[in-house]
């Protein structure tokens, strides 16, 4: 028991989780923006926009996140010299955010699209009958209802994002929780099970409230039809 308490004083475990939370929040923000752009492109009357959006989603849904992360560091940073800051850890943090954003945006787009499918045809027909244009009917009638219908899939996407933020280890973010766990196990091989359960419970504690919130919101916001 004392060993475990000593681990807490020796390593900054909450700090590591904080890095994951920061990664998640920034990527959630950016991927939400990119996802909305993609879904508007996907439903627009302009066929080239639709094609590009569909291609983006297909591409990023069929690539492993790990390869995107490795690509950000070894390809985009090391070979193409793409960098955000002169400090190494800040730079890697933002490269990881970019990788997570590119990956998650495809799933956000798909979640929103499944939300659009819950909007009955009559809503769009009524909007058109009232003389609303594409952008008016999309932004005033369809998308607000689609958002409410896609709370559950979006919540799941963001839960997956929080768990995926551990893959930032592949993008050399060394302060993040899975890297810290690996480091701790290396030096305290005897308490390997205790260390694993500390981190695992951390994720359970983080994810349960998000799941509860998702369920609550999706019930509260669902359009009763």
């Amino acid at each position, binding site marked *: 028991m004392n060993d475990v308490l000593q681990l807490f004083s020796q390593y900054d475990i909450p700090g590591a989780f904080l890095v994951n939370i920061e990664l998640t929040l920034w990527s959630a923000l950016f991927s939400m923006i990119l996802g909305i752009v993609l879904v508007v492109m996907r439903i627009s*009357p*302009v066929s*080239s*926009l*639709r094609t590009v959006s*569909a291609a983006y989603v*297909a591409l990023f*849904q*069929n*690539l*492993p*996140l*790990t*390869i995107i992360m*490795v*690509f950000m560091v*070894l*390809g985009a940073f*090391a*070979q*193409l*010299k793409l960098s955000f800051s002169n400090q190494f850890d800040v730079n890697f943090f933002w490269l990881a955010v970019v990788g997570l954003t590119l990956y998650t945006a495809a*799933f956000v787009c798909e979640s929103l699209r*499944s939300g659009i*499918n*819950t*909007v009955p*045809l009559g809503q*769009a027909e009524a909007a058109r009958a009232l003389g609303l244009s*594409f952008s008016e*009917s999309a932004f005033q009638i369809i998308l607000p209802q689609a958002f409410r219908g896609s709370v*559950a*899939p979006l919540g*799941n996407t963001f*839960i*997956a994002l929080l*768990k995926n933020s*551990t*893959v930032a*280890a*592949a993008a050399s973010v060394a302060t993040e*929780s*899975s890297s810290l766990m*690996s480091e701790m196990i290396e030096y305290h*091989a005897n308490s*390997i099970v205790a260390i694993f359960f500390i981190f*695992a419970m951390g*994720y*359970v504690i983080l*994810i*349960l409230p998000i*799941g*509860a919130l*998702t*369920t609550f919101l*999706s*019930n509260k916001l*669902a359009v*009763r*039809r």
Partner: protein
Amino acid sequence: MSTTKDESSLLFDQPGPRGLRKIRIANWLAGLVFILVIVLILLRLHNPPDGENQLSWELWKPALETEAWTDFYLPGLWMTIKASILAVLGSMIYGFIFGMGRLLPSKIVRTISGVIVEFCRAVPVLMLMIFFWRWFAFSGMSEASYWAVVLSLILYNGSVVAELIRSGVGNLPGGQREASLALGLTQTQALMQIEVPQAIYAMLPAAVTQLIVVLKDTALGSIIMYTDLLQESRRLGSMYFNILQTLVVAAVIYFIVCALLSKLARILPEHMQKRTAATATPVDVEPVAPLAIMDASNVNQIAVAQEVDGNRYGGAPLQHHVHHRGSNASIRQWRHTRYIQGYDETHPESQEEVHNREIPNLWKRKSSETDDDAIDQQNHSTEKS
């Protein structure tokens, strides 16, 4: 794609001549912008700041040679596929056991399997991998990283499969269970012999998409030194200093394999629908895990979203709809929740839903059935006479 057509026709009318002209102009403009972006990326690749030309054949040649394929990519791909297949088979067995465990009448078994499944789904796969890898390595196991990859993928994906089985049973019409109880089967027998077999057929398409998730997640193994496709392409790239190029080749391989699998996942439901009373829906790639400890209906909301999609234009009409959209209903009480949400069983017209409007289709089937009956009766009567 048919779905894009559906959505675009949902949002705007057939444009007139002016609208068509506008759309054509926007089309060209957008096309130009995208071409410009691609050209900019290529220019950047051609001439990165204080780096070498990434498009030169010197860098691409070692990434595409025959030796690269025979010594690196193909062995790596084999390792990836080997781990994925074993992990999928294992997660089917694991998912079956724990999915059953969550449905059995015994409260203790239900709670224990519930806790295990929820735990395995909440912990990131990478953490499971690192833990098992170190543990196996300390205990002197050979191929520690391989078994770590397989075991952690089984634990995570098996839990997702367990949820799929559970929601598959939940989506079965209540009549299946009631009929089997009425025939004198016990609850466990009804579960084992009637409900779960149908749920398995309903979840097979989802299991194929789960195979895609597994295949993508094996790439995490490269972090714990498993020599999969990604790791091999990194090794090749570090030999010739052309990691960017080898990663692109690896990405193309991953993309092709996953795209083929997702095509299979789209075709499969039509075949499986014949063998089950539940709805065999294709689940999106990476059916992200909802937290069923709070609510089983999360799964079903995704199902509702897809139900409308698949049904709107000439798809096979679903016999049964998900009963508790957006509610906190437990599966066992769906009839009650449906009532308190305003769906009154005794007034069928209150249940009419938009995508259900193509009633002629249903009529046709029914009338042909009754025709058959009528003919049968006629035959009987002629026999009698």
